[in-house]
């Protein structure tokens, strides 16, 4: 980097105290430096100044040029000046009266429903009315009324009577995520926040408006009337839904999460979180949450497990798990990507104890190329952070759709783009998210990212963000590091899940001679691996869901560590319930490699983290006699059992000779199991559509019937509404990875395979 810019400072006097602040600082924030809190509503440090509420009026007897302002000024809009003299409510009777007057006006039309308002107790209007207002109102007239509340979206409700039209929400929507779907409508006292007819406030970040609303005008369907702030216990935590490590605050009562809010971390998520981070937490209290360990009986002679699962004590389960794994001999460990760093280390430790190199955290399509790349080029490196994203002149996105896959990165890139950064999206089409970043599209057929990267010419200081989806694009990951080597660009690998980076650092990747997840599944089916330890893996997320399910059946001994019942737990011989993120402490590593430790929110009896459970198994393992009677014939050698193992579970749909490349990624809100339990959140998800170029659309035979097309692949077909996207790369169809049916991998096509497209319903 070139010469350091010396930050210019300005010295001014506020309430008789001198304070030196950076040039351009607003008076309201300069006052905070000396401990003077000027009351405010519309002002928000991360939003552009508005000067709308007029609550922060101060007296400025000298603007720095020897002349004063004749009337009080809104301190949230006035930048400091050298020699400026400011008198706040603390020293100026004029400013104090002005503030009291504004406060009284604000309350003229504000309903006195604080006793039933969600915001009561944490309400800036309530608080500041007490600190900077008069105790009794002089208003004896008629208040303006509205029917209340109205829906701005399936999740967000607006109570217009309470609204003081400070415009924080509309400014947030327009400035931060770039979703200006709420706006001021009407005028005067009738002025209100509104949406266009039939166009609700559908933003992945809409929930932030509730949090920054300085009154109780915006509430969520999820939390409205559920509790009072003063009944809640707040615990700072970290969001578990993606690899961004957003700081959150978990508000809970009597052992139950009532709501989640954004935490404040200027280095990571500033004050914003996605709606998934905010609203998706009810999975942890789902009815099918596992509570007790379950085991399958062991056959006396062979040691094989037989029959139905039954409830077991923890001690029995630990012992059975250890004995079964030792007996199985060859064991593989699939940890899944949701683990904390501590859990990941425990999985790695178990693998060591079991003497296996067959470990993998990746519960998704992968490749040997990726394995090597992650091990050699990503693990142990920490080159980039959020601050670098914000400062980069050019950002290249490849195999990554930040709005869907990494919300915090998306918002940081929005900030960068608003300041003039150039964003290049190596993608099949310019998504809505990329368009909001002002991105230029480098139209690329999935699988050909390496070629696209090779042709890029980027300036010094460029940052390349490579998503985990590049795993299945041959040569793409090396192309990222090549691009960096040629141009001096810096790059980072961005996984999707919160535990991915920690698991990588913990070594949950096949070491020399080890098998990766796909090979593990194949080896189980081939009878080479007989035991499996499976963490939080959704079978439908892996490269070949049918093969994975078959492997679960084929494996002689399966230990499952899970939150809720899945096909893994149903097939397992020992099922060990584990703690959800809120029930354990731990550390997630962000995509940057930044450790994000979080404390335990709830202390539930007999609810253990993966690490604790694995520790107990390892203790049992250590206590076993060195020699155990080896298991008699492995399951796979049992003809009776192997007969029902499909070799490669492929449903022949006759569409293997499809002509289109399949582009797909998971939308932020989709059918993911950790989003279950909130129908309002689910209603804000984007509908599943198939996207094609105009030429592809025109070539459809037969033509689409009622806007529907059928995408067919080697594993099945989806019938979806079609959306024609101008500028989309030819020869490609995009479908969301997990928004319909059992998802793309289970129900449509294998990774990298081609699909065909026909109009109408199949």
């Amino acid at each position, binding site marked *: 980097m070139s010469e350091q810019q010396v930050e210019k400072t300005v010295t001014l006097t506020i309430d008789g105290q001198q304070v030196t602040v950076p040039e351009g600082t607003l008076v309201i924030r300069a006052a905070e430096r000396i401990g003077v809190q000027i009351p405010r509503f519309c002002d928000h440090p991360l939003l552009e*100044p*508005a*000067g*709308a*509420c*007029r*609550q922060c*009026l101060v007296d400025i007897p000298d603007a720095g040029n020897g002349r004063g302002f*004749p*009337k*009080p000024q809104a301190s949230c*809009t006035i930048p400091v000046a050298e020699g400026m003299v400011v008198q706040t409510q603390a020293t100026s009777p004029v400013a104090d*009266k*002005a503030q*009291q*007057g*504004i406060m*009284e*006006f*604000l309350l*003229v*039309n504000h309903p006195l429903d604080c006793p039933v308002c969600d915001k009561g107790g944490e309400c800036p209007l309530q608080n500041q009315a007490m600190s900077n207002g008069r105790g009794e109102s*002089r*208003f004896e*007239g*008629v208040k*303006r009324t509205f029917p209340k509340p109205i829906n701005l979206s399936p999740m967000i409700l607006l109570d217009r009577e309470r609204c*003081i*039209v400070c415009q924080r929400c509309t400014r947030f929507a327009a400035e931060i995520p770039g979703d200006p779907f709420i*706006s*001021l409508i*009407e*005028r*005067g*006292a*009738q*002025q209100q926040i509104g949406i266009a007819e039939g166009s609700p406030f559908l933003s992945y970040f809409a929930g932030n408006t509730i949090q920054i609303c300085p009154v109780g005008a915006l509430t969520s369907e999820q939390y409205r009337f559920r509790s009072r702030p003063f009944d809640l216990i707040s615990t700072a935590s970290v969001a578990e839904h993606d690899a961004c490590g957003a700081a959150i605050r978990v508000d809970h009562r009597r052992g139950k999460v009532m709501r989640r809010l954004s935490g404040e971390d200027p280095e990571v998520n500033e004050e914003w979180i996605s709606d998934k981070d905010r609203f998706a937490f009810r999975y942890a209290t789902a009815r099918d949450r596992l509570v007790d360990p379950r085991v399958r009986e062991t056959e006396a002679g062979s040691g094989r497990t037989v029959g139905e699962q039954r409830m077991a004590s923890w001690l029995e389960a630990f012992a059975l798990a250890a004995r079964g794994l030792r007996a199985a001999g060859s064991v593989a460990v699939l940890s899944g990507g949701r683990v904390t760093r501590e859990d990941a280390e425990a999985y790695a430790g178990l693998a060591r104890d079991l003497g296996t190199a067959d470990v993998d955290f990746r519960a998704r399509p992968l490749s040997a190329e990726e394995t090597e790349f992650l091990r050699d080029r990503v693990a142990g490196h920490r080159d980039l952070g959020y601050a670098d994203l914000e400062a980069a002149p050019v950002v290249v996105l490849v195999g990554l759709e930040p709005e869907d896959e990494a919300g915090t990165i998306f918002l940081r890139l929005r900030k960068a783009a608003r300041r003039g950064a150039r964003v290049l999206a190596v993608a099949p089409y310019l998504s809505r998210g990329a368009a909001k970043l002002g991105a230029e599209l480098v139209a690329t057929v999935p699988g050909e990212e390496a070629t696209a990267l090779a042709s890029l010419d980027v300036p010094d200081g460029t940052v390349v963000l490579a998503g985990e989806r590049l795993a299945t694009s041959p040569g793409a990951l090396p192309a990222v590091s090549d691009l960096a080597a040629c141009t001096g660009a810096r790059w980072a690998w961005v996984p999707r899940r919160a535990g991915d980076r920690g698991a990588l650092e913990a070594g949950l990747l096949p070491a020399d001679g080890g098998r990766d997840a796909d090979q593990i599944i194949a080896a189980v089916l081939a009878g080479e691996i007989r035991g499996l330890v499976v963490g939080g893996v959704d079978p439908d997320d892996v490269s070949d869901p049918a093969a994975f399910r078959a492997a679960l059946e084929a494996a002689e001994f399966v230990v499952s560590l899970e939150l809720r019942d899945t096909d893994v737990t149903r097939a397992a011989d020992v099922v060990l319930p584990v703690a959800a993120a809120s029930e354990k402490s731990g550390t997630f590593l962000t995509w940057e490699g930044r450790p994000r430790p979080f404390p335990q929110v709830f202390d539930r009896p007999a609810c253990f983290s993966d690490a604790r459970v694995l520790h107990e198994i390892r203790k049992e393992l250590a206590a076993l006699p060195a020699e155990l009677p080896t298991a008699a014939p492995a399951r796979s050698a049992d003809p009776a059992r192997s007969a029902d193992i499909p070799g490669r579970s492929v449903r022949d749909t006759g569409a293997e000779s499809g002509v289109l490349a399949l582009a797909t990624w998971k939308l932020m809100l989709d059918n993911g199991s950790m989003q279950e339990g909130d129908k309002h959140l689910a209603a804000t998800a984007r509908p599943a559509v198939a996207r094609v170029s105009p030429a592809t659309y025109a070539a459809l035979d037969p033509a689409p019937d009622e806007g529907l097309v059928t995408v067919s692949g080697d594993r099945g077909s989806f019938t979806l509404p079609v959306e024609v996207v101008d500028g989309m790369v030819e020869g490609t169809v995009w479908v969301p990875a997990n928004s319909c049916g059992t998802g793309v991998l289970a129900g449509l096509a294998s990774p990298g395979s081609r699909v065909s497209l026909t109009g109408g319903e199949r």
Partner: protein
Amino acid sequence: MTEPVDTLTPVLTANWADERSWTLPAYESRGGYDALDRAFAMAPDDVVAMVKDAGLRGRGGAGFPTGMKWSFIPKDNPNPTYLVVNADESEPGTCKDIPLMMASPHTLVEGVIVSSYAIGANRAFIYVRGEVLHVIRRLRAAVREAYAAGHLGQDIHGSGFDLELVVHAGAGAYICGEETALLDSLEGRRGQPRLRPPFPAVAGLYASPTVINNAESIASVPSILNHGAEWFAGMGTEKSNGFGIFSLSGHVVRPGQYEAPLGITLRELLDLAGGIRPGHELKFWTPGGSSTPMFTSEHLDVPLDFEGVAAAGSMLGTRALQIFDDSVCVLRAVLRWTEFYKHESCGKCTPCREGTWWLVQTLTALEKGQGSEADLDLLLDQCDNILGRAFCALGDGATSPITSSIKYFRDEYLAHLIQGGCPFDPAASTVWADSGAASASGVTPAGSVEAGARTEAHR
């Protein structure tokens, strides 16, 4: 009745009584569009200097020197420069731009061309109040005529100067007369005032350097070109040069537009307008629309220029002289104005939005004779909490009628409380209240240029 005709200076209004004055032939027959060639013969900066020398001050109310405003346009800004004419005339009592555009739209168009040339704008906009459809049609017809005649478009009069002129109709919001709200509205957004800085001269329309002038200011420019800066500066008073249209309305015998040098007094104007309607006396009046603190009969000799009116505690504003005689209840008039401000408050800032809502309720109660004398102090305190606290000047304007009326007519407010209602008969203030007065004011003032223009303009 002898009329001191020599006190009038018909310049903008000179042709209003002409046959089909709004057409191009009628306008050109009086030397219309001659100012273009005079301007094109000069360097743009010299035109700016001329307007500065003439001492033309903004006719929209604030009185900011027009030439100085033009000179604020940065020369090194890569964006285009725009001229925007504020013809969103909505102030209660103000009626000068609309009759001007009705009777002689070409005067404004010519002014736009000269002014655009001076500031280097190749695109200009006239933002007209949306309710006055007839005026918009006339203005658009005039622009069409000017294009056809080569006064607008490419290479005007062979000067190499290009100008595109757009007449934009507002959607009926008082706030859009505030210049930055007007810009937002013109850009297709919701009309609400913008934060300043940046000022429009630096980042106005489409974030480009923009001059916003009142229609009457721009319309006055050709006359300066035609007659010279000294001619213009020779009229009016020391710091308020030139002439202006004074709109007299209300209880005068001959209401209308009277064009006179700044500094004329209401006494003189009333003489021209035939006085207060017979049988009544002047009670109160506004010097510049309802947003300017009201005057009473003791202010009849206040010189109506920027300094004179300010010294007497009000503002010259738009020279909208609303005349109220002794039949009018001041509280009733003030309440109606306040209802207007409540209705027109854009809602952006708290004091104007909530304050006007509350003021109306307080005044309504007082008009019904409810409340107590303490409510007058409450009213004044509410006004004190609005004045100078609002985002734009419209909030300030809403308080003027209340504070000034309480200042001059406190007893009348109290009379409502004593009587338990309004002591006035509202019907008595109507124009048909007493037949004698009606017949007197019904006389067509044949000699009056202004009234003639009205008749003509509305034909």
